[in-house]
């Protein structure tokens, strides 16, 4: 049993965001509990109290007690807590320590100094249980995000702690990887483990959870048995800022694109040496000034298409024609712009304004102001881009593309790890871009985002176009089939 008694917490040197106020919570053994709420509500902080990272790693003012079977977790060293609590985090890229998957599965057990034979036995049985024998003995850097997350879950499982804490584990996963994640949580539930999940995407957890705790501004606002939470109406969920438990009921905002011509992609062929993610498209027509959702499973070629389109792959000889005018690879570097998943990679200067200016051939401050105004960034003109929030950074990156006159924007999973509110903001940005007559391609696994702003869907599989449709009533039905029925 985990017991949080009168917890108050504030991060050192920071604002109140993510802090906790007067938290009292008892989690009985074997419960699968969902912590939800908007970004900054304190759900991640709560998970960190349970795995001991607060106060042993992240500093701040803490009062109250976190008890695990009468032991005070806060005063245990982390390596002790590790025997009882295993953790899975949001980012698959930063939670493996070794470089090969087999060693990674063994890592937790090795740290506990378990006997060798036992570790080997555990690694093998865990791999079998999670159906991932094919992933053993691989270089983790060569695996996909979903596979990495699978390794992360399995390595926690191998050290066999009674409690598992997950902090937004599905953020970076596609539908089928999310399905795998659900199956792994299912296994833990059957084993009688206590599972604490902080999460924004709720639909995949519907059949697993026993209880839902809703946090707001660091306080526990609601504490529901699962059934009551699942019965919340669509409007109630939206008011609470939660993503839906049931994707099918999420409100669809219809967007149609007036036909303004088309963008032709021809001869898009590309293969990595490792034969993965290859792209094989002879000809593809994209609607100009549309918001096109690019969907498909891992390895379908979504990112490769984006990279080829933006002119980042030297060996892709494809040509793009906009209204009949051809653009080769090099020309496309200044025709298209990609907003990367990790937007920190593409902000270089010391102020938002300077960031705009280095992308422009000639200085035109009125143009800069107009774009910043449109994207609600004008008040941050003199701020350091790195000091802005995630959503604001993303908008700065979009603004740099707009001031430099790009016609095509590619957004790589712009809403991974975002709550409902922030997802809606991204949707609004995309609509703004469309109103400005630009075309955007959105690589995404986010059904809610697609039905909030996209006009078309491009479905890739195995490097080829599986289907392409506009999001009218019939298109919506096909989209639902992909996201909902395929589960």
């Amino acid at each position, binding site marked *: 049993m985990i017991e949080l008694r009168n917890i108050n917490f504030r991060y050192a040197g920071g604002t109140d965001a993510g802090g906790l106020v007067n938290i009292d919570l008892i989690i009985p053994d074997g419960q699968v509990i969902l912590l939800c709420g908007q970004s900054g509500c304190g759900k991640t902080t709560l998970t960190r109290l349970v*795995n001991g*990272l607060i106060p*042993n*790693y*992240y500093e701040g003012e803490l009062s109250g007690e976190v008890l695990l079977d009468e032991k005070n977790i806060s005063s245990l060293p*982390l*390596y002790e*807590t*590790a*025997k009882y*609590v*295993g*953790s899975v*985090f949001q980012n698959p890229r*930063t*939670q*493996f*320590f*070794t*470089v*090969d*998957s*087999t*060693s990674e599965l*063994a*890592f*937790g*057990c*090795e*740290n*506990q*100094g378990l*006997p*060798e*034979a036992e*570790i*080997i*036995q555990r*690694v*093998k049985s865990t791999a079998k249980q999670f159906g991932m024998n094919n992933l*053993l*003995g691989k*270089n983790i*850097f060569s695996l996909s995000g979903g596979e990495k997350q699978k390794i992360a879950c399995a*390595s926690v499982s191998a*050290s066999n702690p009674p409690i598992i804490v997950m902090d937004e584990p599905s953020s970076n996963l596609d539908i089928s990887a999310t399905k795998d994640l659900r199956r792994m949580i299912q296994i833990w539930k059957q084993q009688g483990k206590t599972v604490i999940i902080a999460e924004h995407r709720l639909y995949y957890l519907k059949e697993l959870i026993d209880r839902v705790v809703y946090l707001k501004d660091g306080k526990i606002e609601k504490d529901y048995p699962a059934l009551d939470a699942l019965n919340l109406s669509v409007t109630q969920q939206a008011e609470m800022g939660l993503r839906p438990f049931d994707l099918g009921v999420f409100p669809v905002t219809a967007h149609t694109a007036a036909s303004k011509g088309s963008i032709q992609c021809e001869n898009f062929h590309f293969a990595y040496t490792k034969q993965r993610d290859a792209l094989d498209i002879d000809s593809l027509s994209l609607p100009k000034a549309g918001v096109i959702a690019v969907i498909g499973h891992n390895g379908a070629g979504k990112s490769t298409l984006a990279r080829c389109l933006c002119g980042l792959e030297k060996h892709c000889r494809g040509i793009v024609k906009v209204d009949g005018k051809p653009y080769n690879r090099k020309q496309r*570097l200044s025709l298209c712009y*990609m907003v*990367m998943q*990790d937007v*920190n*990679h*593409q*902000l*270089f*200067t010391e102020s938002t304004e300077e960031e705009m200016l*280095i*992308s422009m051939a000639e200085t035109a401050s009125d143009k800069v102001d107009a774009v910043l105004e449109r994207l609600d960034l004008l008040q941050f003109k003199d701020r350091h881009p*790195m000091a802005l929030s995630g959503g604001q950074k993303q908008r700065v990156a979009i603004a*740099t593309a707009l001031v430099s006159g790009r016609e095509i924007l590619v957004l790589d999973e712009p809403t991974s790890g975002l709550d409902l509110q922030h997802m809606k903001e991204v949707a609004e940005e995309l609509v703004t871009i469309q109103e400005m007559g630009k075309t955007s391609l959105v690589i995404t696994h986010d059904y809610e985002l697609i039905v909030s702003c996209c006009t078309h869907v491009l479905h890739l599989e195995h490097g080829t176009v599986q289907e392409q449709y506009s999001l009218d009533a019939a298109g919506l039905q096909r989209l639902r089939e992909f996201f909902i029925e395929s589960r």
Partner: protein
Amino acid sequence: MDAAVTTLKFENKSVIPTDPRTKLFLTVTVSTIMITGSTGGFMNLVRPCLMACPIVFLLLSWKWSAAVRFAVTYAILFALELTVLPLLTGTWNFILGAAVGIYTHMLPGFIMGYYLVSTTTVSEFVAAMEKMHIPQKIVLPMSVVFRFFPTVKEEYAAIRDAMKMRGITTLRSPMKMLEYRVVPLMMSIAKIGEELSAAALTRGLGAPQKRTNICKIGFGPLDVFFFLLAIPCWVGFFIC
């Protein structure tokens, strides 16, 4: 238990089955003798062999592009030494001579180090260190370095792409270009480092009891062969 060990699959990076300790020893051999060893006499025979040795290893491990790249570097250095150097006099002769000299002495050790890192997995490396009774406090940071090489490579590639798309790859101002590359790189590496250590700590890294290591390493006939080959080099090093 042995049967269990053999059925557990590890990532295998090396083509030539040698113990990491052998590779480490060869790296030390090549760099020490090349950098501080004397020239002349018997060493005139040893030096070219030591220069060729890392390239041979790369070739045998199917690392064609690396082998070719280093071989070309060698060729350029020799070409400079033979063609340009005799034409120069005074300060320029000294500068180029010193540069070429330093490179030809350091490069073989560097290539050998590259071979060591690119063909050894973290677990093998840690196991080797533990067998040599190196304390945990040194082994851990070194194993993190292995984890970080590919990470830095990934991050750097992403930043390079981002700069390409912004059209700021041209050398308008070299200092600015460097800043644009390095600042985001440092930021993301710092963040990755923070998340990485949090994850490692929640999995019990740093516990005081002895760690188990399920990765097995050991010397084989090939290792003995390489040690024997190294003996005359060292004898020459101490005598000449």
